[in-house]
Each structure stands twice: as C-alpha cells, then as structure tokens.
C-alpha cells in the first residue's frame, strides 16, 4: 500500500470537495497541484491503468471541444473513460482527472484516458505518460510571450513525438501544413482528416495566416484554396510537400441556423455528419474526434449519434436567454479563434441588432502580450454597423480593446469602456440590442459567466436556435 499516494489522492479529493462547496472556481487544477506536491511521481502510478489506451489531444484551437467529443463518442460506445473536461490541460489538470475518476487507493477502472494537453506542456506530459494515440488539431499563434514563437512550439511537439516508438498512431489535421509536417518528420503512422476544398469559405482569412512558407524547405507555399487561416489545399514548389490525401474527408458543408452538417467520406464508407454547433472550426473538431474513434474501432453510427447531440463546454459558444433575447458567450484566445467568433456574430442575413461585450484580460493564462488583438480582423465589424447597437469593452485591457475597435473604423460613440464586469454585463443585457454577444479571454470568461448565469437563463439544449429572430 502506497501511503503517499493515498495521502495525495485524499488531499486532492478534499480540494475538489472544498471548491464544490464554496462554489469558487471549478476545482480542475488545484487538486492536481496539491497532489503533485505531495507525490511528484503520481502519474507513474496512473499511466498504465487505462485498459485499452491513452489518447492525447493537443494543438492550439479546438482541443477542449475535440476531447469532449471523443470522450462522448467512447462513452456512447460503452467504454469507461477518464478525461480532463474543463480545459484544465496542464500537468495539474491531467493529474486532477485521474484523482477524480479513481478510488482512494488510486485504482482507476477505465478503458481509455482521453487527455487534452496544452501544446506547450505536451513534451513534459509525454515524459510521464506514453500515449497510444495523439490527435493534433492545428497550430495558430497563441500567447506569444509564454511560448516564444509558433515555430518553437511546433518543433518542441515534433521533438517529443520523435521520442515515441512506432506503435503510436497520429490523427492529424491534414489541411494544416504545420500539423501535417509532424507525420513527415516524425516517421510515425498517421491518419489525416480534412475538408474538401470546394467551397468559398475563406472570407477575411488573410491576415492571421501562420504558414506562408513550407515548414520543410522554406519555399513559399502555393494554395489552391484556403478554408480559413493557413488551413487549406497547399503544395510546396520547392520540395513537393503537399496536403496529404485525407483518410477522412468532409464535403458538401452546409452552415445552418441550428448547426453545421456535411458529407464525410472515409476509407470504408461515407456518412452524413450533423452537429448541433455552428462553425467550420467545429466541423474540424468533429472530424478529429470521428477519425480517432474510427481508428479505435467504434461503430460509425454510434460515433455520429454521439456527435449529433454534442453540447459545447463552458464558454465555447454557450447560450443564455434574458428577457427573450439570445445571449451567446464565447471564449477568445487568438486571432483565428477570434475571427471565427466575429463571423458567428455577423451571422446570417437579417440577424437582429446586437449588443457586444468584449472582455480582455492579460493574466498569464490569457497571455500577457495582447498585441494579437491587432491581428484580429475587427475591420469586418465596421463594414456592418447596422448589425450592432453598441460595443462594451471590459476587463484589465478594456482601453486597448476600445482603441482597437476605433482604429478598425468602429465609430467611437458605439464604443464604451466599462472595466467592471458586473456593470459591463448589465449594460449589454439591458441595452438597445435585440440579442447579445459576449467574447472573453480565459480569465475574464468565468467571472462574466458567473454574473451572467445569475441573471440569465442557461439554455441547455439548442431550442434557442429554433426561435425565430425577435426583430
């Protein structure tokens, strides 16, 4: 009996209980932090316990969504799964996931561990747990001051992968050259997913493109088409590096009020995927989860049924209702994701006038350097002033956000600076808009969500999409 392990688990469990009782935070990283302090080798104990394997999901955007989708699919298929569900994707969050799912003596009775791992700590986590499968979603610029340059992050992930042996399987976004290179350079077995580049989906994607040059030889990449950012159909005139032929490919993509659907072609068949969440980025996430589950021999219909009822995790497009107005809450953390969120705000033709709250913080978890706000295409908002009634800027860097909107061409009389979250939320809920959009960086999201959930009704299912517009 390992007393140190038991003590670490008990202390972690108490911390979980305490955070639940006080309602403070979500208790998703503190338990792991305390347990690691008591028993630094704790992951040695857990790593071999999942009976069928360990799957890691890494990349810049869509980790949490992909991870949750994959967990949902595996559970639907009858497997027991350990997962870190709340975006707690550092070492501490991984440890918390095991403590929560296991017994006091540290037994975890599960088939799979499905772990979302931050791309910067991926090499560190790999030092403790050897995955059987690694899913990589994409690489975009994110929080430069913490990670140095994007180049460095990708290289570190690659170096960590190279240390793994041949029986590891990679599930890669083949539309992202920075991800596809991992297969070429690591020599590991890889399955690619992608979206068939037939449709014009790439409006406004030009500025936050990360890979204009071949990651292998440095020549300028040619693109047939962009899906968004650097995702698309690329080829290198220098060394012949091209978008790999996908093992799973979506086509006939259709964005609807209620979500997104597409036809998907795999090596053994083709299916229709229907997601209750909007956005092409969510289709990518679903493709990643679907690819992984097919590779784990899950029945395709089971996987599709699970994806069809996927509910977004906190802050990633959550819906509320307040006085018959729809309120959408969304996490923003980098230019590509922010642009996707702005597209969602601009929405369909005839959408009602919106009040928008943007809350920007610059704590470590948000990224201390907020320069990336200037790489977001806010200019698209100024092109459609009729869709908005006001922009309220909040958080520690409210002034910077307001300034960015001004230089994007949004009239200053439409922009308010309100540093206090409570007042800012009140303003947008009770403003002239017929619907409300709230965008917040990581550490601003939870306080805003808390204030919001006290006043507005959380919409759990997706019936809000079927409401006809109030206008």
């Amino acid at each position, binding site marked *: 009996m390992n007393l140190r392990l038991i003590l670490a688990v008990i202390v972690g469990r108490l911390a979980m209980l305490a955070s639940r009782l006080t309602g403070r935070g979500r208790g998703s990283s503190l338990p792991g932090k305390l347990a690691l302090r008591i028993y630094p080798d704790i992951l040695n104990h857990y790593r071999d316990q999942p009976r069928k394997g360990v799957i890691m999901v890494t990349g810049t955007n869509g980790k949490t969504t992909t991870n949750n989708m994959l967990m949902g699919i595996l559970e639907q298929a009858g497997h027991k799964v350990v997962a870190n569900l709340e975006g707690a994707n550092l070492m501490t969050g991984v440890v918390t996931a095991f403590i929560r799912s296991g017994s006091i003596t540290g037994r975890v009775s599960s088939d799979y561990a499905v772990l979302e791992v931050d791309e910067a700590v991926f090499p560190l986590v790999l030092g403790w747990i050897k995955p059987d499968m690694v899913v990589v979603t994409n690489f975009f610029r994110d929080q430069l001051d913490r990670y140095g340059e994007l180049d460095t992050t990708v290289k570190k992930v690659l170096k960590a992968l190279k240390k793994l042996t041949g029986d590891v399987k990679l599930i890669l976004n083949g539309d992202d050259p920075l991800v596809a290179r991992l297969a070429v350079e690591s020599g590991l077995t890889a399955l690619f997913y992608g979206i068939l580049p037939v449709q014009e989906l790439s409006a406004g994607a030009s500025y936050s493109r990360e890979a204009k040059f071949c990651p292998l030889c440095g020549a300028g990449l040619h693109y047939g088409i962009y899906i968004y950012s650097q995702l698309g159909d690329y080829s290198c005139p220098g060394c012949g590096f091209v978008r790999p032929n996908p093992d799973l490919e979506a086509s006939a993509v259709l964005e609807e009020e209620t979500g997104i659907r597409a036809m998907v072609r795999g090596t053994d068949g083709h299916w229709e995927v229907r997601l209750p969440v909007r956005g092409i980025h969510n289709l990518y996430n679903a493709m990643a989860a679907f690819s992984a589950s097919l590779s784990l021999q899950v029945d395709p219909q089971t996987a599709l049924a699970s994806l069809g009822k996927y509910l977004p995790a906190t802050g990633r497009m959550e819906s509320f209702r307040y006085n018959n107005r729809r309120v959408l809450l969304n996490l923003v953390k980098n230019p590509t994701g922010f642009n996707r969120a702005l597209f969602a705000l601009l929405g369909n033709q005839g959408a009602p006038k919106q009040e928008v709250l943007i809350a920007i913080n610059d704590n470590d978890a948000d990224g201390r*350097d907020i320069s990336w706000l200037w790489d977001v295409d806010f200019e698209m908002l100024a092109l459609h002033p009729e869709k908005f009634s006001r922009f309220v800027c909040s958080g520690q860097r409210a002034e*910077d956000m*307001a300034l960015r909107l001004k230089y994007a061409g949004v009239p200053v009389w439409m922009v308010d600076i309100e540093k206090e979250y409570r007042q800012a939320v009140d303003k947008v809920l009770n403003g002239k808009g017929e619907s409300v959009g709230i965008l917040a960086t990581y550490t601003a999201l939870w306080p805003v969500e808390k204030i919001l959930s006290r006043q507005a009704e959380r919409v759990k299912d997706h019936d809000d999409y079927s409401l006809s517009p109030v206008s």
Partner: protein
Amino acid sequence: MTITVCHLYPDLLNLYGDRGNIIAFTQRCRWRGIPVRIMEANLGDQVQFEDYDFLFIGGGSDREQGLMAEDLTARVNNLRSAVEDGLVVLAICGGYQLMGKYYRMPDGTEIPGLGLMEHYTEAGDTRLISNVVVEAELGGIKTRLVGFENHGGRTFLNGIQPLGKVLHGGGNNGFDGTEGARYRNVFCSYLHGPLLPKNPALTDLLITLSLQRRGQDHRLEPLDDNFEKRANQAMVEKLLGKKS
C-alpha cells in the same frame, strides 16, 4: 500630396500585431484628410526606397529574419541613400537589430546587419519579456511611450542616440536604461503591442516628418485622442503607480 507607406516583407515579418503600426499611421492620416496608400514589398520585389514616405520594418522568427536580411542586403545602397536623404523609417524588434552592424550568436558567429546605423546586438541567455514604459522627447515634448517587449538580443547603441529612457522594463539590453535608437528620420524600438496606436505623439511625429521631407511644413490638425490617452495612461499607472 499622397503619403506612400511601404510595409516591408509583411509576409515574413508579421509578429506581435505589427500590422497595428500600419493601421495607426494610415488612420491618423485619413482622419485628417491626408491621402495615404499602402504598398507591400515582398521578397524579390523591385523597390525604390526614395519613392516612399514611410517605411515600416517589423520582426519575425529567426529563419524569416535570415531571409529578409539576405534580400535587403542586396539593395542596401538604395536604402542607405534614401535614409541619408531623410526617409522616415520605423523599425521594430528584428527590424531594429537588422538596421545595425551585426547580431552576435551565442557561439560567437556574427550575422551581419545592414550597417545603416552603428548599434550592434548580442544574443542574451534569457528573453526580456515585459510591459514597458519609456520616457522620450519627441519634437521637444516629453512623452511616455508604452508597449510590450519580447526579445532575446541585447542591443548596444555604440554612440547613437536612444529613443528614450526606460522607466519600466528591460529596454535595449536590460542594463544601460536606454530603449530604442534614433538616427536621422529612422526610429527603432523593441516595443510592440503594437507601438503606434497607443503612442499617438510618436505616430504624429512620423507623419509630420514624412510631410516635411516632401516640403509640406504644416502643423497637423489635432484629433480626439481620448481612447489613446486612456490606453496609454492605464498602462503607465499599472506599471508606475497611480501618482504618475
């Protein structure tokens, strides 16, 4: 007259919201009714630097910076004569280092710069990463510039004039209290964030100098800088305390 802005290698050098500097410069021209157009120069493009009024050079990752250095070295004489003639230049971070004599790597090898200015840079063993406040004298008026720095190189001025004095942050080398460099109408700095939007006094000085070089010597119309001042002041207070 139309002010012509040249964004040098936007394909290569687009770190840290560099594009914000171009946006700030052009918007502040447009808001005053000064016509402005933006040209992008990429690798291998034919460029006559004296045709431009404002040249912007940003920073990139190591490899991209290497490509840029190679391309620019081929046309350094053209650039030098434009600079000596008073071309207005803003060079940030990697662009700043490139304007100097060399960048010395940890193993002692020197990557030659363009040598347009006397400063040189040595690799440091840590990165200087911080919000920064700099006190600078622009057009005879003391101004506080704010921004964010993130650089591994340590730059030594070697006799040329700094942009200003560091009140908070690392600056050129974390050691001598200077930040950035000035030479003729060339302004260099490690600050991004980006630099120009929150420091309108500097932006307006660059616009004024661009006009003067073409013989247009008039005072710029003042603008409503409420948001600019608030953003600048918020950072100054955060770093130096309320009393400032």
